C-alpha cells in the first residue's frame, strides 16, 4: 500500500501549551483511519494541520512524498467535513455542492452531472433547490459530505461529523460513511472521541492522549492488545490491576498466581494486568480463582453489569447470569482473558470501578462535545 500522508515528528503549541508532542503518523491510500481520544488530546489539531488550517511548529507534513507545509488549504488535494457542517446558508443544496466546482470553472453540464451523482451517493436526489437551513441535521451532514467529495479529493478529513446527530441516526450514518468510503476508494481520516464509532468503522485506529499517539492498530488489536492503561481504559471497559510477572506465562495479581499467554517480561517485573469485564466467568465461591462480594447490579438489556469487591478493588463484570447484591461469588479467569502491559505513566490512573457511575460518565462526555464545538 502506498503512503498518502506522512506526519513526521509534528509538534504544535498554542499560547505555550503543547497540543501535539512529536507525533509521527503514516496514512495509507484507500484506508479508513480514525484519530480517537478525549477532548484536548490533539486529534482535531492533527486534522487541521493536514487540512492546512494550522502550521506545525516543528516537523514535516508530506503528501505523496512531497512537503506541503507551506501549501495553503485551497491548494491541497484534501477536503474537510466540519463538525457543524459549515454549509453556506446563502446557497441552496445544489449550489453548496457545486461550490468547489464553480471555483474551478468547471463547465455547466459537467457541474450538473457531478452534483447529481453526489446527491445520489448521499441519497438526497430531489433536494437540489432546498435551502440548507431547512434540512434536518442528518441531511445537512449528507450535503456536507457530498460537497467535500464532489472534487474527488485524495483524502477526506472528517472532524467529529456525527457528534451532533442522535444515536439512531449516528448508527445509520456510520454504516453509510463506511459504504461511501468503500464506493469512492478515497482515504478517510476520521476524528472522534467515541470509541464505539472508531471500532466499528475504521481499518486503523490511532489512539491519542495529551498530544501523543498512544497506540496505532486495527480495531481488534487495539481492543485485545492495548499497549498501556490509558488505551485499555479508553477503549471499552477494563479492570486494570497491579501485577507481578513471575515468569513467562505466569502472573500474580489480587493475591493469586494465574496462568496467562503473555511473556517476554523481566523476572518479577511489575506490570499492569487487564481483564475485560466480559471475559470473567462467575462461578460458585469455592470454584473461583478469586472470591468477592457483589456490591451493585445494573440491568443493561443484553447483560447485567455488576461491581464486585475483591480485596477492596472493585471489578466490573458483564454477565448474562443474574446474581444478587451482597452475594458471595467466585471469579474464574481463563489464561487468554488476561492481557499483560508494561507499566506506563498511566498506571494506577484507570481501571478501578470504585467511583464508577454510568450517569457521571455520560455527563462528562456531553461536556466534552460542547467544549470542542466552541
Amino acid at each position: 500500500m502506498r503512503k498518502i500522508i506522512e506526519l513526521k515528528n509534528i509538534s504544535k503549541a498554542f499560547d505555550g501549551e503543547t497540543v501535539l508532542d512529536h507525533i509521527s503518523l503514516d496514512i495509507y491510500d484507500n484506508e479508513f483511519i480514525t484519530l480517537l481520544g478525549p477532548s484536548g488530546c490533539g486529534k482535531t489539531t492533527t486534522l487541521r494541520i493536514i487540512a492546512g488550517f494550522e502550521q506545525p511548529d516543528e516537523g514535516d507534513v508530506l503528501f505523496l512524498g512531497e512537503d506541503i507545509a507551506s501549501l495553503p488549504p485551497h491548494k491541497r488535494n484534501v477536503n474537510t467535513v466540519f463538525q457543524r457542517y459549515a454549509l453556506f446558508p446563502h446557497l441552496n443544496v445544489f449550489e453548496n455542492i457545486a461550490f468547489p466546482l464553480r471555483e474551478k470553472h468547471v463547465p455547466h453540464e459537467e457541474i450538473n452531472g457531478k452534483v447529481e451523482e453526489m446527491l445520489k451517493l448521499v441519497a438526497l436526489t430531489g433536494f437540489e433547490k432546498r435551502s440548507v437551513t431547512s434540512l434536518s441535521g442528518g441531511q445537512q451532514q449528507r450535503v456536507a459530505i457530498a460537497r467535500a467529495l464532489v472534487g474527488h479529493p485524495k483524502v477526506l478529513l472528517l472532524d467529529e461529523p456525527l457528534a451532533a446527530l442522535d444515536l439512531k441516526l449516528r448508527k445509520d450514518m456510520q454504516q453509510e460513511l463506511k459504504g461511501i468510503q468503500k464506493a469512492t476508494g478515497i482515504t478517510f481520516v476520521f476524528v472522534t472521541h467515541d470509541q464505539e464509532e472508531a471500532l466499528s468503522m475504521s481499518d486503523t485506529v490511532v489512539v491519542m492522549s495529551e498530544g501523543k499517539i498512544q497506540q496505532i492498530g486495527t480495531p481488534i488489536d487495539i481492543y485485545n492488545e492495548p499497549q498501556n492503561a490509558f488505551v485499555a481504559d479508553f477503549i471499552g471497559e477494563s479492570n486494570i490491576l497491579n501485577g507481578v510477572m513471575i515468569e513467562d506465562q505466569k502472573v500474580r495479581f489480587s493475591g493469586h498466581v494465574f496462568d496467562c499467554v503473555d511473556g517476554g517480561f523481566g523476572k518479577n517485573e511489575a506490570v499492569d494486568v487487564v481483564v475485560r469485564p466480559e471475559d470473567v466467568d462467575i462461578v460458585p465461591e469455592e470454584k473461583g480463582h478469586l472470591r468477592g462480594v457483589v456490591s451493585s447490579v445494573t440491568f443493561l438489556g443484553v447483560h447485567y453489569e455488576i461491581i464486585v469487591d475483591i480485596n477492596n478493588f472493585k471489578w466490573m463484570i458483564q454477565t448474562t447470569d443474574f446474581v444478587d447484591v451482597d452475594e458471595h461469588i467466585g471469579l474464574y479467569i481463563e489464561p487468554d482473558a488476561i492481557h499483560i502491559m508494561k507499566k506506563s505513566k498511566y498506571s494506577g490512573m484507570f481501571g478501578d470501578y470504585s467511583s464508577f457511575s454510568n450517569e457521571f460518565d455520560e455527563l462528562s462526555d456531553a461536556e466534552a462535545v460542547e467544549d470542542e464545538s466552541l
Partner: protein
Amino acid sequence: MKKNNTLLQRLVIAPYSFWALLFIVVPLFFVAYYAFTDSGFHFTTENITRFFTARSSITGDDGTVREVYTYLLIFWRSLKLALISTVICLLLGYPIAYILSRASDRTQKILITLIMIPMWMNFLIRTYAWMTILQDTGILNGLLKSVGLRPLHIIGTETAVVIGMVYDYFPYMILPIYSVMAKMDIKLLEAARDLGCNSFGVLRRVIFPLSLPGVISGITMVLIPSISTFYISQKLGNGKFYLIGDAIEGQYVANNLHFAAAIAFILMIVLLVCMAFMQRYANSKAVA
C-alpha cells in the same frame, strides 16, 4: 412564547406604545394633514403640485440665465450628493468593517470606541470643525502650504458638502456591516478555503453575500439622513447648494408650514419606496 399578550405584557409595553403613538404616529399624521390643507385648513393638493411645478431662474457661473423647476432641481441635487456620500461611505466602510471584524478582541474594542467618539459630539460642532479645516485659510490649506503644495479651494463646493456628509454618517455604515461580519461563522470561511477559494474567492463568494444584510442597513442608515440633511450644505457649501432639508427648514422658518409639510411628505414617500425596494432585494438574496 405565547402569541396572545397577557394583561401584564400589555401593561409593560403600554408606555412604549403610548410614546410611539404620541411622537411618531401623531406627528406623521400632522405632516400629512398639513401637506393636504391650505392656511384655512381646507383640503387642497396645491402644496403638492407646487413642489412639481414651481419654477425659478438661476444665473450660472458664466452669467447665463436658466429657467428650472426649483424643487425638482433641489431634490435631484440632494439625491445626487446623498448617493455620492453613501457610495464613498460604503467603499471606505466595507474594508474597515472587514479588517475590524478580523482583528483581535482588544483591537476591535479600541477601534469601535474610536469610531464612536465623534458621534458623542453634536453634529453642528462637527460641521463647524470641518469649516475651520476646509476654509481657504483653514488648517488643511495651512498644512498644504507648509509642505510647499498649492492650497485647495474646497469650502463652498459640492466636495465640501460631501466630505461633511461622509464624516457625519460614516459610523452608521461601518457598524451594521461590522456587526454582521463579526457574527459570521469562522468555519464558513475555512470551508470556503478548504473547497478551493483563495482569499479573494472567500471574500467574493462567502463574506460578501453573507454581509449583504449589513450593507443594506448601512446604506439605508446613511442614505436617508444624508438625503434629508440640512445645515451641512449651508455651512460647508456656503449656502450655494440648497438641499431638500434646507428647503423644508426654509419654508418652515418662513412660516409656510403647509408647503414645508408637503415637501417633507413627498420626501417621506420617496424614501419609503426606496426602503421597500432595498428590503425586497435583501430578502430575495437571503432566500436564494
